[in-house]
């Protein structure tokens, strides 16, 4: 690895958003092509994801790496160019815990790992109203909707959301992933979701598989 690339790698793995941002600014100021220049950042963040999967990286470290990555993306692809960033990334994701449900740790973890594997993630938080998901989907046309539900009583809202997307005619444009402790692959099938995964690592693998499909 070249020296500058090594530096990028270290900054991301150290989860140092401040330094990563400075490095990204240098690249932008030097007039380099951001698309090409992003590559070492992506390599680094995927490495962070792999380290987490292998149990060598702890959650706080992974989250800091994802933050550092986000800092670089913000500099290299300011919002007006969000589209090209999106194209560069593996895919775009809108995520949230479904209406009525405030459990958010699992969803946060799925978001962090997706970011760490190069997805562009917008996290709407917990107890997200169905309308809000619909609006955001209409407006941003993400590749994936990531819907978390931890209660048997709120799972049903995953179904209601899919029904609403169908009613609006926007269901086909997005892949809906569902998860959370009471959710099963049977449930995903029953409500017409595109996929289910039992944990964050497998959620990433699922998203990648669906992209390739």
């Amino acid at each position, binding site marked *: 690895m070249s020296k500058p690339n090594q530096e990028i790698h270290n900054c991301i793995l150290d989860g140092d958003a401040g330094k990563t941002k400075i490095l990204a600014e240098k690249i932008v100021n030097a007039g380099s092509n951001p698309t090409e220049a992003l590559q070492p950042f992506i390599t680094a963040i995927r490495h962070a994801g792999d380290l*987490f999967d292998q*149990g060598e990286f*702890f*959650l*706080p470290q992974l989250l800091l790496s994802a933050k550092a990555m986000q800092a670089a993306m913000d500099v290299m692809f300011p919002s007006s160019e969000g589209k090209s960033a999106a194209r560069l990334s593996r895919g775009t994701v809108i995520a949230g815990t479904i209406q009525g449900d*405030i459990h958010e*740790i*699992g969803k*946060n*973890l799925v978001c962090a790992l997706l970011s760490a594997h190069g997805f562009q993630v917008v996290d709407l938080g917990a107890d997200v109203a169905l309308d809000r998901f619909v609006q955001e989907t209409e407006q941003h046309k993400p590749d994936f909707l990531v819907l978390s539900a931890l*209660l*048997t*009583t709120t*799972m*049903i809202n995953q179904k209601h959301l899919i029904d609403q997307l169908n009613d609006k005619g926007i269901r086909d444009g997005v892949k809906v992933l569902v998860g959370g*402790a*009471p959710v*099963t692959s049977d449930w995903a099938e029953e409500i017409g979701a595109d996929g289910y995964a039992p*944990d*964050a690592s497998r959620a990433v693998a699922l998203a990648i598989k669906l992209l390739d499909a």
Partner: protein
Amino acid sequence: MTEHTLRPKLTIISDSFVDDIIEEAFAILDKVGIFVENSEAYSLLSEHGAKPIDSGNSVRGTGKLSFPKSLIEDALKSAPRTIQLYDVNGDNEINIGGDEVHFDPGSAALYIHDPSEGRIRKPVTNDLRRFIKLVNKLDNYHIQSTALISSDVPEKCGDSYRLYLALKLGFKPVITGIFEKESFSVMKDMLTSVRGSESALKEKPLAIFDACPSPPLMWSDLTSHSVIEAARAGIPSEFVSMPLTGSTAPITLSGAAVQHAAETLAGVFLAQTAQTGAPVIWGGSPSAMDLRYGTTPMGAIETMMIDMVDVAVGKKLGLPTHAYMGLSDSKGVDYQAGQESGLGIILAALSGVNVVSGPGMMDFESCQSLEKLMLDHEVCGMAYRLLNGISRRDDLMALPLLQSLPKGGHLLTNPHTLKWFREEISFPGKAIDRRARGSDKLEDLQTAEKRAQAEVERLLTEESEPYVSTDVSDELDRLMVEEIKRLGGAGLPK
């Protein structure tokens, strides 16, 4: 000569450390405050002296409130120090307080571990039925809990349906809780129908409602509602604060305990504002988060240490206590399941936790197992034996016996042995293997799960008569059918 001796007790934290935790919790309530998401709770708390922290509050009728120490201290004075529970017939008083220890199965499992099908699956009515019947038979569980969520009724009545079956088929008092605000009233109606009247229910509580604050420092709409309604009905509320270290709470065990105390004190205050003298239990289900996987282990030793500190704090404040101990994160009925649950049960007993919820539960509070419940029951028996301590039965404890013993003799038929063997030594059921090995082939040697499975099936084939009268049973049916229909279901499942 005194027969009885010391009741074994374990303390892992000094008295002054406990005082510091309490003081810091008071400071948090005063300086940081608690976010109250429920407008009725918000008004009640404000009326009783809690102060809004941000100015937008009054518009929304919810928000962050600060609690001066003196308010909480008054609330602590009015909360009862002990609570009595009674079975469905109003008998068998269970005292919750002091250092008494009562075990109940871990509650609200999404899944059941089913060895006969060789898989983990969603529970249905028949599983709940079997579970309740088994708990009826296992004496070391003094309280039952609505342990499984049945998947064959509409999701929205998952909470009331499990209580319905517990009251219809079980006889022990019940630990339960709501998943939906709307469920409280029908669940209260069910309890009232068993007792005969609202005042009889107040007089002889039949159920405890769990209510979890949301870490950090929030009381949600749902759980505030539960606390208020329970207080008014005289139903004990059990606060289940669950700080998760390093994520929704400080990473330090003591920091998590401080947060737990602050959230729980706010609950005590809320209950007392709804009804002075409302019965409450100082409970908890903290977890030392595993930062490699983001999971919430209940079997971690650090989780148990936080529980033990939380309980020490509750005792210092003079309240009945509870902890989620005796669970495992294992996915099978195996070494890890036994080790984590056994450790939790013993530590809880030694800490004098009044209500210990957890037996049977695995996989981070998400999966129940009848076989594990059976095995954990044996450990609870051992815990009770341990609590009875070592008694001094004779002035001279061994000398005269050994003096009278001829060379090569034994004490098997000695009157002293016959007099004391049942009191000194406890005998677990068949799930615990103490027989001589019958074979050297591993395949012939039964695992704990297999033995427990045989015991479960044996106990479940025994007939048992219904505990509630036909009238009450019919009334419970009526309430449940109405609720299922309200929620769009057809009626009771087969």
